[in-house]
C-alpha cells in the first residue's frame, strides 16, 4: 500500500515511464564468452569496497612522518576490529588490481577495443594507471622500511626518464629525496586527487559502455542466442558474483591480515632483499635484465625507454590493430596480446621466487 502511494507520488511529478522503458530496453548479448562481461562490474564493486574501507580508515590515520606508523599500530591494536578493516583495505586493493588486469586481459583477447570502442580502451588504460598509482601511494602511507624503500626505487626509476625524468621525480617526491613531504604528497594523491580522477574517468568509461552497448566478439556474431535483459536478470547475476567476491575478500582479510614492519628511517640503509608489491614485480624484473651500461649509454634510461615504448604500444593497441578496425579476424594481434599477458605473468612469478 505504502509502496503504491510512494510510486504514485513520483509518477505525478516525474516521467517515470520513460525511465522504465529505457531500463527495459537495455539488453546484454548472450554467447559463449558472456561471462567476461561481468569482469568490469566486479572491478567496480572492489573499488567501491576500497572507497568505503579507505574512508573509514582515514578517520584515524595521521599523515605525518612522525605519527603515521604509530597511528596504524593504534588502529590495528586499539580500535574495535581495526585490524580487520585495515586487512580488508589491503586485500581489497590486491583483488581490485588483479580484477583490473583480468578485465583488461578479457577485453584484449576478445578485441572489445576495436572500432567503435577505442575510447573505452584508452580510458581503461588510464584507469589501470590510476589504480597502480593508488596501490603505490596507499602502500607508502604505512611508512615502514619496506614501503619507504619501495617508493624510493619507484620514484627514482621515474627519474630515469629522458628529459622529463627529474621533473617527474621531484614532483612525486615533493623534493629531491623521499621525506615527510613525500608522505603528505602521497596522502593527498591517495585520498583526494586520485579518487577524484578515478570517479571522473570511471563515469566516462561507464557512459561509453552505455552508449556503445556490449561488444560481441567477432567469432560469436553468428552464434548469438537471444539477448538477455539487464534489469533484472543480469543485475541479479552481477549481484551473485559480487557477493562471492565479497566473501572471498573478507575471508582473505580475516585469515591473512597483513603485517607492518619497523618504522622507516630515512638515514638507514635499505633492508635486504627488498621487493615491491606483486603488480610491480614484472616491471622490476624486466629492469633487472638490462645491464648497467649499453653502448656507452645509461642502461637504466635505455630500459625505461624500451618499457615505455612497449607500454605505449599497448595503450595505442586499437590503432595498430588495423584488421580489427575493419572488423576482420586479426590473429597476429591476438598473439601479441597473448605474449604481453604471458610475459607479465612469467616475470611476476620469476620476480616473486627470485
Amino acid at each position, binding site marked *: 500500500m505504502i509502496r503504491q502511494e510512494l510510486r504514485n507520488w513520483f509518477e505525478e511529478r516525474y516521467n517515470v515511464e520513460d525511465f522504465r522503458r529505457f531500463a527495459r530496453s537495455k539488453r546484454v548479448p548472450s554467447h559463449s564468452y558472456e561471462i567476461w562481461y561481468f569482469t568490469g562490474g566486479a572491478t567496480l564493486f572492489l573499488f567501491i569496497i576500497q572507497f568505503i574501507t579507505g574512508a*573509514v580508515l582515514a578517520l584515524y590515520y595521521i599523515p605525518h612522518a612522525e605519527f603515521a606508523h604509530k597511528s596504524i599500530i593504534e588502529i590495528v591494536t586499539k580500535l*574495535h*576490529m*581495526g585490524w*580487520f*578493516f585495515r586487512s580488508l583495505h589491503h586485500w581489497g586493493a590486491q583483488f581490485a588490481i588483479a580484477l583490473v588486469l583480468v578485465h583488461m586481459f578479457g577485453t584484449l583477447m576478445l578485441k572489445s577495443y576495436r572500432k567503435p570502442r577505442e575510447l573505452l580502451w584508452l580510458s581503461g588504460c588510464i584507469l589501470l594507471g590510476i589504480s597502480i598509482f593508488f596501490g603505490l601511494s596507499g602502500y607508502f602511507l604505512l611508512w615502514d622500511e619496506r614501503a619507504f624503500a619501495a617508493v624510493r626505487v619507484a620514484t627514482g626509476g621515474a627519474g630515469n626518464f629522458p628529459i622529463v625524468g627529474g621533473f617527474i621525480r621531484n614532483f612525486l617526491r615533493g623534493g629531491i629525496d623521499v621525506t615527510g613531504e613525500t608522505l603528505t604528497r602521497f596522502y593527498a594523491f591517495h585520498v583526494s586527487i586520485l579518487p577524484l580522477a578515478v570517479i571522473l574517468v570511471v563515469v566516462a568509461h561507464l557512459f561509453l559502455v552505455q552508449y556503445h552497448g556490449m561488444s560481441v566478439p567477432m567469432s560469436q556474431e553468428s552464434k548469438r542466442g537471444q539477448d538477455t535483459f539487464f534489469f533484472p536478470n543480469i543485475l541479479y547475476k552481477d549481484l551473485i558474483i559480487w557477493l562471492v567476491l565479497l566473501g572471498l575478500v573478507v575471508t582473505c582479510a580475516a585469515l591473512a591480515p597483513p603485517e607492518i614492519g619497523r618504522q622507516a628511517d630515512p638515514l638507514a640503509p635499505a633492508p635486504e632483499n627488498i621487493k615491491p608489491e606483486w603488480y610491480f614485480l614484472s616491471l622490476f624484473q624486466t629492469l633487472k635484465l638490462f645491464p648497467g651500461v649499453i653502448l656507452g649509454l645509461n642502461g637504466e634510461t635505455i630500459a625505461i625507454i624500451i618499457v615505455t615504448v612497449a607500454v605505449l604500444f599497448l595503450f595505442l593497441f586499437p590503432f595498430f590493430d588495423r584488421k580489427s578496425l575493419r572488423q576482420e579476424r586479426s590473429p597476429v594481434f591476438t598473439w601479441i596480446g597473448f605474449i604481453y599477458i604471458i610475459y607479465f605473468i612469467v616475470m611476476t612469478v620469476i620476480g616473486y621466487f627470485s
Partner: protein
Amino acid sequence: MKIPYSLVTRRTFLNTLFGGWLLAFSAGSIYPLLKFAFPTLSKEPDFVVLAARDFLSIPPNSIRPFAWGGKVGLFLKKTDGEVSALKGVCTHMECNITYRAEEKKFYCACHKGWFDDNGKNIQGPPPRPLEFFDVTVSGEKMIIARKGVKVDTARA
C-alpha cells in the same frame, strides 16, 4: 486444515525472503563498520597508576595534574598534609578548573564558579560538588581509582 489456495503469491514470498535476508545481511555487515567509525570517545578509566614519589613530594597547599582518560585529574595536598584526588572538571559545563592556593578554593573561570577544598560547590552556577577519587599508595605506585572500584593492587 489445508486451504485450497495460497495466501501469498510466489512472487511476494520470494521478494519478502530476499528483502528480509538482504536486510539482515547488510545490517550485520554494516554494524562492525559503524562501530569502527564511531568509537566510544573520551572513555574514562576505572583507575590510573602513577609514580607515588612525584605526587607525594609536592609542597602543601598545592595541586599536581594527572591524566584521567581524556580529562584532567588533580592531586591535592592540603596544608595539613592530607592528600586527595579529584576530577579537575567543573560540574557546570565541564570546563577545566584551577586551584587558588591563597583562598584554598577551586575556581572555574568559565562562569565564575567556586568550590571549597573538599569539592563542595559554594558559589556560582555549578550544581553539584566535584567528583573525588580514592587514593591508595602501594610501595612505589599510587593508584587513583573511581569511588567504589576495587583495584587488585598486585595486578595494577
